């Protein structure tokens, strides 16, 4: 299949794997390479294709917080369930947030089983269609995700405005990538304690397609960490890892773009304009694991406030602490590996997730459980 098979060629993979080994063994004195893939899509691909099995032992992949369902705090999810349970509401959502546990072991899946009208869609545009087909119902779209999904939400917001829909609103939970990376690099674990070593970053693919590679230049300059933006296919990732190792060996720290077939330095200007028209930055947004980060979450612009579900339904979102034994916070930050959590694979499984990281196949725990690398799986 075009654009797929070429990027999964096993001969090239072997060759890249050998070159990575050579490069990683060429440093004097010998060293380790701690590389964070920020994006959940990369975490999934690393496990799905067993790529860690092709890397030398001194390259340690650290799984980052770029999984939208993993970083959504319980309070915001409780808000979603509260909206979904209103009798007049049809609640429209993407699939993998359905199973995420909220307070009192509730989830959207359970709310649906109890009678809430919750509908799963692939495209947020379907939410608009549902609103038009059900004029006597209130249709609420659960907007979630990083810069990848935000432009699509912006477009349906503009469209709802143009159509003057009276029964449509959006529960906005969009977050942006750069503050999350900064917060990791500014965290005491990285700065002082040395608990978390991050030598370089694999930059997100689809996020960068929208925002461009430019926003990452500030990191590499300020924090002296190389960033290589990578595609999602196995050869993309292997090449990006090689590029990172080479930069580190050469003491360079700049932004390089492996995913040139999609990502440009400037990004998708039209998408950026739509997002700017539809959303503004909130002063702070609470992330699961990372805490409150300034200017990291989006809210709907005032001119579209009629479509803001939080305003329309007077929703009060409360802050709810994570379950005590759950290590999601440390896992999201890359401080702990999934199997270092006491609950992993015993109490917390994809069928019965306690923490969000186990839910999505992009979450580190979900990926570990499903595709566990031969050497690291314990259950």
């Amino acid at each position: 299949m075009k654009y797929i098979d070429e990027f999964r060629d096993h001969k090239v993979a072997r060759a890249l794997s050998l070159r990575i080994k050579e490069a990683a063994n060429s440093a004097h004195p010998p060293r380790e390479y701690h590389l964070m893939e920020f994006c959940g899509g990369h975490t999934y691909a690393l496990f799905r294709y067993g790529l860690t099995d092709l890397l030398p032992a001194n390259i340690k992949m650290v799984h980052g917080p770029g999984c939208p369902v993993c970083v959504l705090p319980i309070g915001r999810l409780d808000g979603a369930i509260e909206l979904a349970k209103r009798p007049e509401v049809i609640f429209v959502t993407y699939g993998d947030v359905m199973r995420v546990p909220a307070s009192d072991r509730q989830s959207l899946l359970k709310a649906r089983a109890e009678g809430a009208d919750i509908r799963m869609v692939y495209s947020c545009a379907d939410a608009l269609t549902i609103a038009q087909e059900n004029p006597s119902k209130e249709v609420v779209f659960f907007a979630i995700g990083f810069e990848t999904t935000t432009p699509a939400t912006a477009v349906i917001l503009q469209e709802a405005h143009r159509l003057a829909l009276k029964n449509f609103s959006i529960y906005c939970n969009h977050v942006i990538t750069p503050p999350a990376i900064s917060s990791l690099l500014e965290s005491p674990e990285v700065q002082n304690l040395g608990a978390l070593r991050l030598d370089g970053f694999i930059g997100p693919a689809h996020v960068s397609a929208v925002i461009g590679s430019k926003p990452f230049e500030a990191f590499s300059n300020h924090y002296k960490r190389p960033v290589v933006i990578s595609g999602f296919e196995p050869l993309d990732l292997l090449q990006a890892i090689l590029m990172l190792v080479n930069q580190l060996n050469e003491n360079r720290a700049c932004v390089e773009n492996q995913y040139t077939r999609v990502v440009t330095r400037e990004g998708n200007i039209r998408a950026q304009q739509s997002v700017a028209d539809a959303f503004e930055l909130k002063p702070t947004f609470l992330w699961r694991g990372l805490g409150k980060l300034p200017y990291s979450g989006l809210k709907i612009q005032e001119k579209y406030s009629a479509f803001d579900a939080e305003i329309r339904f007077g929703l009060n979102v409360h802050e709810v602490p994570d379950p005590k034994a759950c290590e999601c916070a440390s896992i999201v930050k890359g401080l702990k590996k999934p199997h270092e959590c006491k609950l992993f694979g015993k109490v917390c499984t994809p069928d019965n997730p306690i923490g969000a990281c186990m839910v999505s196949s992009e979450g580190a725990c979900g990926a570990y459980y499903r595709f566990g690398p031969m050497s690291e799986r314990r259950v």
Partner: protein
Amino acid sequence: MNNNPPSITLAHGNGGKLTHELISKVFLDAFDSPELRMKADSAVLPPLGPQDRLVFTTDSHVVTPLFFPGGDIGKLSVAGTLNDLAVMGARPLYLSVGFIIEEGFLVSDLKRVVSSMALAAKEGGVRIVTGDTKVVEKGAADGLFINTSGIGVLLEGSPNLRTKAPALEDTDAVILSGSLGDHGIAVYSKRKGIDFKTDLQSDCAQIFPLVQAALAVCPEIRIMRDPTRGGLATTLNEFVAGQAMGIELFENKIPLKKEVKGACELLGFDPLYLANEGKLVLVVPKAYANAVCEALQKCAIGREATVVGLVTKEVPGKVILRTSLGSRRILDMLTGEMLPRIC
């Protein structure tokens, strides 16, 4: 005057006149068998040989949409139960059918379903000998549910005739009869809200000919199964659960249609977990692998039959996938519902 096409009402299920009409006009017409014509409460079946070992199975069928490319719930409900008998190494003989119909269901749709059931039963050489119909209020069912039960007798050479269940042995071959995921994607492509255009057809088919072909050339089949819900990954995990052996599966040996591959890329599904309705997976001693593959390839639905994995003592109780890149990872059972990812 009512111009609406005739549909099923609660009166069709109350045991009265309309019920009798429905039975004789729709079901008897299509299923016609001496047992059904008796119109008794149970079917009286002819005696079997003294050595015959009976096999009995049941399966309920719910599928959305009811009509999909390559089949419908009727064909599926017959093939599904016959396949459950076939993988035991049994020749299917008799079927029962039970319908739960939602009020308002079109009689013309019911006739379509029933005639594809009759056709499938004929193809499988089985008689439908007893049945039941219930009608439930609108909203209490999703159009039509069908339960079928089947009776068969074990064929000579069936692994289930041996006194001790055959265990998997190191280097045994895992053989798959054809491409994965055709049914899962064909049905999913027609779901409301997905609806993408594809020429892909469900693989819904009866696999008894495959079983017969394999038994004819291999007296030592270890185990056979049809990888339906949960897909090949789940079936293989069932094979090795609690066993001293594991299975290594080779990703690049698995036949996949390009439409299935494309849809999986798009929707974030893994074909190893998708449902199949006309495939056979079996484990045989290595020495028989070629003969079994060749025998399967002679059947119309087994042309792509090939060895996709090997039994190994290296990973007891586990299935591992040798990816097309050459790396290895665990291949687990399907957990939870397959949910599409956000981005």
